[in-house]
């Protein structure tokens, strides 16, 4: 982990951004079904301006997660999102590999 350096580690990035006074949300893959591009526990960190680091999928749903993160940063209330081909949103965002994932988004407070 330390070898990778700070800029690629979402949790370290989250701490750095918070120290810089930026609003920060953290997204975490909490469940996967079928073939999912990123394993459970993977993180994506997003700031108030939509900058992000890390990933919760291979890039398929990051856009939607980043948009939802703006809401979470505003309200402070955590959210759970589900993405996958079985979902009606599959026509807009979805996992091309055919899997499904659940993503938890929370604000970094304090």
């Amino acid at each position, binding site marked *: *982990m*330390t070898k990778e350096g700070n800029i690629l580690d979402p*949790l*370290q990035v*989250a*701490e750095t951004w*918070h120290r810089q006074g930026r609003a920060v949300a*953290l997204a*975490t893959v*909490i*469940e996967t079904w079928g073939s999912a591009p990123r394993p*459970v*526990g993977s993180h994506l960190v997003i700031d108030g301006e939509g900058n992000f680091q890390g990933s919760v999928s291979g890039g398929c749903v990051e856009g939607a997660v980043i948009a939802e993160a703006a809401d979470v940063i505003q309200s402070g*209330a*955590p959210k*759970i999102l589900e993405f996958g081909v079985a979902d009606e949103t599959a026509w807009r965002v979805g996992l091309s590999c055919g899997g499904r994932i659940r993503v*938890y988004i*929370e*604000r*970094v*407070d*304090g």
Partner: protein
Amino acid sequence: MNIATLKSLNSARAARRAAVVVTDLATGRTQTLLEGEPLPSEWEAAISGALRSGRPTLATLGERSLFINVHLPPPRIVVIGAVHISQVLGQFAPVAGFDLSIIDPRTAFATEERFRGTELIAEWPEDVLTARPLDRYTALTALTHDPKIDDHPLRAALEAGCFYVGALGSRKTHAARVERLRQAGVAAEDIGRIRAPIGLDIGAASPAEIAIAILAEIIAALRKRELGWGGEAP
């Protein structure tokens, strides 16, 4: 997540210390549990399972839905001795997901040509292990047969609580080693943690077979280890 939670998590990760983050999905409340801290008894089964496998998990406790994320330091193997067995071990270990480095002060053994692609440090273990200390997520194998080289790292590994400590050598060699360690003041219980003869008993004969037996024993030690959670020594 509270910033204090995030900070304690990051410092644990930087220190190669295991950590678990439990998130209550209904309330959004998060809690970090660090290795060595007491574990809430109702979470113990779910958390220890996640820790052993290294896989995060969802758990339902009563009416609460919890997400348990696990942050384990990546396991690594430190080999003392640039010998034939370590040449093979250096090739197999990365395939099984382990970082591996070899330490041997004898420059005649520790040549780039024999260990292409493997991290090789031609210095005394005392010096290397001071700069890069062993820890609970490290396996140490002492393969030189030479007390001058093997004994110090073996003691360091026992002190650091390495999840695996193994030493090559016949029963007679090991008996002499046990005696030296005992006289140096190492507790009998600690000495008993040294796996010798090294490797699973699969009748391994060639250096490659012995390397496989050692790697298999390391994997078993990692996956079946006592967690040393709850303030207990490893």
